[in-house]
């Protein structure tokens, strides 16, 4: 069973075709990369998979279950988590609250949440993860007061809280200094090592080539290549897409 299958995915925005029939399949336990020039549709792809956007056509399957156009919260509860390219931690909430939020909706009913069941255990877990990510010193700070890098780590930590089976990371090392980039890559590798399937969108070639087993390349809403890092690096179409074809 594949972790994620995308078949013929299409997305139109008022006449502009952002995705023109993309096919992807990711095996369980893979560390899969998605790259492509700006505007090629990578984030749109993620948005359609996670239910944030309605697909204009095609299908998405997660662990052989149909998730096309389902609501984002339903998809999340099935075990599919993601981070966003523009950091989306909740600025007016503390780091701890952000972490707790990331896990409180995974299971249980509304009623249980009213009575704060599991809160203690969740808090302990959050502290553990924050220490692991080396940002536990800001646990009770408002997220808006964190540095960019710290927010990125928090975002990542939130994904770890619920430890979804399939994790979509949208530019996890974007705008982050080199040190932290290495740290992030290490975390991602460890996560993958524990059995989570990870799909990464990245612009930084070192990161992608260093992390991923297989990579797909998007350009103008279509997949133009797929394969191992070495194959991709030597693929003429990919080079053309990034640098413009020579006349």
């Amino acid at each position, binding site marked *: 069973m594949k972790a994620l299958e995308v078949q013929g995915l299409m997305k139109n925005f008022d006449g502009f075709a952002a995705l023109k029939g993309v096919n992807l399949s990711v095996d369980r336990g893979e560390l899969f990369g998605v790259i492509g020039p700006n505007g090629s549709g990578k984030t749109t792809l993620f948005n359609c998979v996670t239910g944030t956007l309605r697909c204009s056509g095609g299908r998405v399957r997660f662990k052989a279950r149909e998730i096309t156009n389902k609501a984002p919260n339903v998809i999340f509860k099935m075990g599919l988590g993601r981070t*966003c390219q523009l950091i989306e931690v909740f600025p007016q909430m503390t780091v701890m609250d952000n972490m707790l939020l990331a896990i409180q909706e995974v299971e249980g009913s509304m009623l249980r949440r009213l009575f704060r069941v599991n809160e203690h255990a969740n808090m302990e877990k959050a502290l553990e993860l924050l220490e692991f990510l080396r940002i536990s010193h800001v646990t009770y700070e408002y997220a808006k007061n964190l540095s960019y890098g710290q927010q990125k780590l928090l975002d990542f930590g939130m994904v770890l809280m619920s430890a979804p089976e399939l994790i979509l990371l949208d530019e996890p090392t974007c705008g982050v200094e080199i040190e932290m980039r290495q740290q992030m890559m290490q975390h991602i590798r460890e996560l993958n090592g524990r059995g989570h399937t990870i799909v990464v969108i990245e612009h930084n070639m070192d990161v992608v080539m260093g992390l991923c087993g297989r990579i797909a390349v998007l350009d103008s809403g279509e997949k133009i290549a797929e394969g191992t890092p070495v194959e991709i690096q030597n693929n003429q179409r990919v080079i053309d897409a990034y640098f413009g074809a020579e006349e």
Partner: protein
Amino acid sequence: MVNEKRQTKWRRFAACSFCLPIILASPAALMHSQYMLYLCSLTCIYMIGATGLNVMLGYAGQISLAQAAFFGIGAYTVALLGPKLSFWLALPLGAFVAFVIGLGLGFPSLRVKTHFLAMVTLGFNIIVYLILVNEDKWTGGPYGVFNIARPAIGPLSFQSPALYHVLIAVVTSVVLLLALWMLNSQWGRAFKAIRENEARAELLGVSLRNYKVMAFAIGSGYAGLGGALIAPLFGYIDPTMFALPFSFQFLLMVVVGGIGRFEGPLIGAIIVAILPESLRITQKLYPILFALAAMLIMIFMPKGTVSGVDWIYRKITGKEELQLTK
């Protein structure tokens, strides 16, 4: 560290539970003027309605201009069914009916945002008003309902203003504490997340539908409860009391007091209830000054007067702000 934080929270909550009813009920013992006591009772009831609106607006991000209509639903339930059933049944019934209708209204509210939602709720308010005015067989029409009795438990009658105020204060305390507790639970966290970034919250599993509808129902139920208490307070109700301007007043209470902060609507309720009275010396000018004050507060203190309180708090203790909820 975790346990410490939780203990302080519980201690604070216990302190509030103890202090709040005493503070709210104290006017019954301290005030000698019936009129001042009446104002205090009104303030408490306003606090209930404003807190309800704050849950909807300040926490779940849903604007409602229908609080007056739900007040009306609660008030008319008590006025019309009180004599037949008993106040003690009609009171929760009024709140419950408002809650259920709020649930119903909550679903359409999912599809629309801000100003459209304001319009839908405004429309609902007007429709309720029209029904109250026109269906005179049931509601007494434009003349309203007279002689609404105050409740009694056996020989103990709450007829006197002081005793009725104590009842109102107790109900208000219970309801406010329930809200405080709810907002400090995981629900409160989900509401905050929805308010800040709905799309991201959904991606983390928050069911927008469940929380928004629930916020709407609770806010409306609170308004219904307020209405149920206000009917015996006035002794007489008519549809004009539950028209749009009253809904605007609740909006004012929440916004002027401070959106999204628990203390906000409480301060706002006090301001809206007391300020017109304190401006009465200016006689005919007071509605003008009141409207002007509201506009100026919006311009200069957009976070509400609670930000003024924060400023004072910061000067005294050095901490950022007093947070009763997260």
